[in-house]
């Protein structure tokens, strides 16, 4: 279950980047996970569901996972391949010379959130809307 540790890292990185950009509340954390990364998306989502609550900034963040299919290229015959596992045999020329070109990585792609002004503006607005007497 190294997904727990990876989710801690993903949240730490997201909080850092958000704070640098002046964001005080994250709405969405968009990540890409390669099919050949050996990472279980279910486990990441499970860990995220409670680890996000450790910090106010990520407490309500939604995790959006984009899967990246595995791709490779045979260095012998040049064929471009789709890969569903870490397997380096070229089905065309039958040589173990496939180089993996995509699908190994786990990235934080982008973040969506609100800065202090936006959040303050929004809460005033919603207070107004929420007041039955107004």
């Amino acid at each position: 279950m190294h997904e727990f540790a990876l989710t801690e890292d993903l949240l730490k990185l997201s909080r850092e980047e958000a704070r640098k950009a002046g964001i005080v509340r994250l709405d969405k954390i968009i990540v890409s996970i390669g099919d050949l990364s050996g990472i279980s998306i279910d486990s990441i989502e499970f860990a995220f569901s409670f680890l996000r609550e450790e910090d106010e900034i990520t407490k309500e963040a939604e995790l959006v996972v984009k899967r990246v299919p595995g791709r490779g290229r045979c260095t012998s015959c040049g064929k471009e391949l789709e890969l569903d596992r870490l397997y380096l045999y070229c089905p065309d020329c039958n040589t173990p010379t496939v180089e993996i070109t995509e699908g190994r990585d786990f990235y934080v792609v982008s973040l969506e959130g609100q800065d202090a002004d936006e959040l303050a503006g929004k809460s005033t607005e919603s207070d107004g809307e929420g007041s039955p007497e107004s």
Partner: protein
Amino acid sequence: MAEIVVMRAVTSDNKLHADNVRKILDDNGVIGLNLMSSPGAGKTTLLEKTIADNPDIKFGVIEGDVYTARDADRIEKTGAPSIQLNTEGACHLTANMVEAVLPKMNLKELDILIIENIGNLICPSAFSLGTHKRVVLLSTPEGGDKVLKYPAAFHRADAILVTKTDIADAVGFDMNIVLDDLKSVNPKTEPIAMSVVSGEGVDGWYKWLRGLLKK
């Protein structure tokens, strides 16, 4: 609403620590090895034998385990300096753990620092420790089918040691499956079949180790 493009690897924090570990090792002229396998494949026994058989090489060992100092105690008896790292639950070592204990090692005195990772064929392979090489063990009682079952561990291995060959027949181990599977998972690395009990193949492993020192 603000949108920020990040495009940073989730393991980038680990990589910073790994890069620092590598720099410290290089500054001290020490070769670092990350030793990985499932529990009980013979990592510590391999180290005991390797240290005893190669007195001219100055080894240091960082022992990773979930609990206990049993392995560091075993290494201490060989005379090589060792440090025990306990993860207390975590299934793998990370580079910051290694970085934190490096100052306790007298690196100037060492040729090779071996980091024995947590016994686990899945998680440790996802975290670089800043070592120069990855060594993966597969013991014969585990069965010859493990390369394709746990490809991530074997895929990036610089050395693959098939251990406990002295009992290969008794446990019905088929080396041909390993050789066949490695052709597709890691064609660059030829496995070394060995036993620290019978001594079979240990020379191949020592030769590989000594090849690192020449560089």
